């Protein structure tokens, strides 16, 4: 593959302009900033995805039934959606800009491919979302009901479309398709837009992210509605309706996000075996492969210090069959060396292992909590004992844990590659002669401080307006 030529070019550039040490510094800082800004960004985005659809459902119910409670609920949830939306937008601009700022070599290498979904995202999704959001917010008294409801649907479609396009971009990094290397080896070039768009990886990730959004929105609706019912604030009937919809919504979301995740895992066994092996701390190939419930391992010696495992379970997760070989880390390392040359091709096992467990653990609890909520609303039981109160009020944290852990696994499990098989992360960073480590440090500090403060403000405002109830949003 022509990629080898590119590596040599990049290495020469770096050697002439900077010392090895400063590259390490900027590399670390650039990765730190990317991790922080993307985890922060994706802290808000799933709620935006989920609440936009939920608000649209409420308003549609109003248009169809004419019942005032649905209008009130659409305004109420729309209000919380807006508070959260704003922060998703402003942290999103940083995401788009930092590829060029901190990852200029990456941008040069994949711009021909990666820039396209980003540009399309802005053109198809962001314009739709922002314009119709303005129309929705300011148009309550100016537009006919149906048209107003259409506006919030267009916002919801825009938000969820933006997820699609950014996942098209991300999927290329995970599983590059539809490209060839340029004749001089300097960059990857797109050869098929449809292959890029219909990358199987996209259609595994996209449902997973959308359903995660639905679950995130659903659990917030459950928690807030249940709180109002428990505290016996006014508007009991409205919050019962809200809880009913929320429980169904969260249950559908939790169930589908689990199924989508399972399907994705089965595909990854073939597509990104190293990520799966690291997520399982599977040091050596096994057939049948066991699933680790709890492992303390030694990354250097590549062996378990202590481990509880379910025999055959990993094979079952991977193939729906209790036998079948799942490749281990050391075998995959040898394969990678044979394919790409000498190097360390093993991601941080401890990070991958524990992020996977946090994601799956939170997901399992979500399914349980959503089932409890659903069970209660089906029986029209709106009394809450201590245990169910605690469960329903705190479960909204679970999707946030699962999303953050999921993205950490996805991005950290891909290391040392930034684009699997084509470009390593260390080759992608902006040369230290252009952006020095002190500039990068400034940027990391600035964003960390601002994002932390803004997250606090966002949470406090959400809490204030959630507790204020329906009249707070009028």
């Amino acid at each position, binding site marked *: 593959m022509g990629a080898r030529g590119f590596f040599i070019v990049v290495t020469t550039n770096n050697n002439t302009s900077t010392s090895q040490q400063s590259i390490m510094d900027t590399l670390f800082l650039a990765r730190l900033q990317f991790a922080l800004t993307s985890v922060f960004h994706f802290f808000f985005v799933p709620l935006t995805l989920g609440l936009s659809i939920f608000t649209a459902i409420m308003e549609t119910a109003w248009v169809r039934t004419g019942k005032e409670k649905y209008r009130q609920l659409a305004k109420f949830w729309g209000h919380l959606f807006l508070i959260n939306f704003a922060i998703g937008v402003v942290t999103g601009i940083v995401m788009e800009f930092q590829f060029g700022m901190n990852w*200029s070599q990456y941008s040069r290498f*994949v711009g021909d491919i990666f820039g396209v979904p980003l540009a399309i995202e802005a053109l198809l999704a962001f314009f739709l979302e922002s314009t119709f959001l303005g129309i929705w917010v300011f148009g309550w008294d100016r537009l006919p009901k149906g048209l107003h409801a259409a506006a919030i649907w267009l916002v919801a479609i825009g938000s969820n479309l933006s997820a699609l396009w950014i996942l098209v971009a991300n999927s290329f990094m995970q599983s590059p398709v539809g490209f060839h290397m340029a004749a001089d080896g300097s960059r990857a070039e797109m050869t098929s837009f449809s292959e890029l768009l219909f990358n199987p990886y996209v259609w595994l990730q996209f449902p997973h992210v959308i359903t995660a959004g639905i679950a995130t929105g659903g659990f917030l609706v459950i928690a807030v509605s249940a709180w109002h019912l428990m505290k016996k604030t006014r508007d009991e009937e409205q919050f019962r309706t809200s809880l009913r919809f929320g429980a169904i919504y969260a249950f559908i979301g939790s169930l589908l996000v689990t199924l989508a995740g399972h399907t994705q895992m089965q595909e990854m066994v073939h597509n990104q075996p190293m990520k799966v092996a690291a997520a399982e701390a599977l040091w050596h190939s096994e057939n049948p492969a066991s699933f680790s419930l709890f492992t303390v391992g030694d990354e250097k010696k590549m062996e378990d210090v202590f481990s509880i495992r379910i025999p055959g379970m990993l094979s079952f997760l991977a193939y729906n069959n209790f036998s079948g070989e799942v490749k281990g880390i050391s075998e995959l390392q040898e394969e990678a060396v044979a394919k790409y040359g000498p190097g360390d091709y093993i991601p941080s096992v401890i990070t991958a292992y524990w992020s996977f467990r946090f994601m799956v653990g939170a997901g399992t609890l979500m399914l349980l909590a959503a089932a409890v909520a659903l069970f209660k609303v089906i029986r029209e039981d709106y009394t809450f004992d201590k245990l169910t109160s605690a469960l329903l009020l705190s479960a909204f944290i679970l999707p946030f844990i699962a999303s953050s852990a999921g993205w950490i696994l996805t991005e950290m499990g891909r290391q040392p590659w930034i684009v699997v098989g084509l470009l390593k992360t260390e080759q992608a960073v902006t040369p230290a002669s*252009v952006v020095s480590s002190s500039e990068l440090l400034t940027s990391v500090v600035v964003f960390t401080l601002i994002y932390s403060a803004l997250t606090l403000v966002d949470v406090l405002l959400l809490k204030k307006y959630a507790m204020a109830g329906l009249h707070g949003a009028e």
Partner: protein
Amino acid sequence: MDLQTLQIIWFVLVAVLFTGYFILEGFDFGVGILLPFMGKDDLERRAVINTIGPFWDGNEVWLITAGGAIFAAFPHWYATLFSGFYLALLLMLVALIFRGLAFEYRSKRDSSAWRSFWDWSIFLGSAIPALLWGVAMANFIRGVPIDASMNYTGGFFNLLNPYALACGLASLSVFTLHGAVFLTLKTTDKLHERAMGLAKKLWIPATVLSLVFGVYTYFETDISTRLGVNPGAIPIFSVLSLLSVIVLLNKGASGWAFVMTAISIAFSTITIFMGLFPRVLVSSTNSDWSLTIYNASSSQYTLGIMTTVAAIFVPIVLLYQGWSYWVFRQRISKDSKMEY
């Protein structure tokens, strides 16, 4: 289409996106800058913010789209520009973060310290980008240190040369004027009178600074000698439309005055892009190292795909964004129902 045609199309499209961005976000920057001068009490300030309430976010997407278009069509331009203008961009991002949140959060708490914090965010979050965009455009055309491998070799202070600062002041003052004229169209009573008074006053510095910038450009850049594409009378029309603003304002023809500030912004932007063509970033180190639409672009296939997507969706976006301006065409008064 052959590669060269596609490269030219995308240069034009990027120029169009920047022009649209400066016209649209230009007036909402202006409104943000004028907030402390327009609103004497909280209710007036709310009214001022609500004049751009439904629009500002959609306007900002023009920038995001321009960024995405540069990334997709000219990856080297994107990589060199964004990594090179690092601290300036960081400053701009911080400004845009605070400004965007300020609109949404300002009226969410009934505390004067809270509201005053976000009012400052709107003011600075509008003034800083309005200044920085002028600085950036001036540096595009004047040239910045770029080496043979397309990497920026200057620092933050290379960008703050007197010429670029002059352009920054010009863009700051013109956007502020543009915003004042917009406010004369969107307000009533006292607010309208105040906006009219401010617009007439602001016309003087905006015109003077624009002329200074124009003359400075003649001496400081190769725009007059090199002539990528001869802009012909376009810069002259830019000046004439700015000059006509005061006449139109005195006649009370705010609508036409707004058209004229928009044209002036558009024609100045177009002049700069024509002067640049076919370069996208001029290297002051060695003219052979400048980034051009030919050495910085994506492949023919990618540009072709992007052209198809743009041909379908740009008209649709223009249509619905235009419609949103039509829906919210009426003026805002202190008695209006306000969302922000």
